[in-house]
């Protein structure tokens, strides 16, 4: 799977985040071949192909969907990166092809 066009987005939802809204949104992001990196009080932080931005941003639950990035000088940047990497690893399956290097697929 090619992750070249993937970017990180923070999504906030209309009327505040609830467990149900969070689940619905996460399912929709997964349907759009996105990945859930972490969930904050404001909403989930996801990795999504740029081409599918409009699709997710147009979801009725979405209030704001803004591109974000990691600031390595942040106070907890390393911890954030670890959390995101761990969550991503649970959603990406590593398949080792015969006679070649492992290739990530979803």
């Amino acid at each position, binding site marked *: 799977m090619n992750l070249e066009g993937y*970017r990180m987005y*923070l999504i*906030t939802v209309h009327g505040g985040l609830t467990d149900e809204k969070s689940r619905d949104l996460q399912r929709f992001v997964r349907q759009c071949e996105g990945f859930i990196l972490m969930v*904050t*009080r*404001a909403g989930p*932080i996801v990795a999504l192909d740029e081409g599918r931005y409009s699709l997710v941003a147009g979801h009725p639950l979405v209030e*704001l969907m*803004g*591109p*974000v*990035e*990691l*600031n*390595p*000088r*942040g*106070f*907890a*940047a390393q*911890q*954030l990166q670890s959390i995101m990497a761990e969550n991503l690893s649970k959603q990406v399956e590593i398949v080792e092809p015969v006679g070649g290097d492992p290739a990530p697929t979803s």
Partner: protein
Amino acid sequence: MGLGATVGADLLAVPFPKMVFDLARAIANGQTALDRASVSTLRVLANTEFDYIPEITEVIAPGPVDTVSGVPVTGVDVTTRPGRTLPLSLLQAGLTPSFYQFTESVIEVKMSISSKVSTQSEFEFGVSVEANAGFLFASATVSSHVDYRTSNTYSYSAEGSSLLRTTLKPVPPPARIMPRFITVNTLVSPPQVTFSE
């Protein structure tokens, strides 16, 4: 009006200034919308706080020894004590909004003008001679005809297409929008002040 003048008029008819203006206005509107979205994201990141626990202390101490079938299996107590929680915003923690900028814009106008002039002429000349001769008279008639036919055909067509292409690239956030973090470390003497953005 000559053909050259027609082509020139058609080229001049391309609304180039309007196209440039429309593109510039679309870019300006797009840039404003993008900046607004980034600033809104920045606001959310700055207002979303969580409790960050930078340290967890684990104290290992001797404890009672349990035995299973006469074999000691433990003998320590581990006490876990989380350190003081630190309220942090997502912005402080290390998430920043992405900012985009239109870096390059191209307007490409293609025109295909073709003109064709064809002239066709037909010329026909004919002579007919008739002569009669008798005993007391002789006569002759000569008749001729000239036909000249000419036709000019003009065809002219102009086709145009235009392409507007613009490039959008992520850029570092504007310095005046992002807050500067001033850290005062009072654990050392004298206190150490560091600035970071």
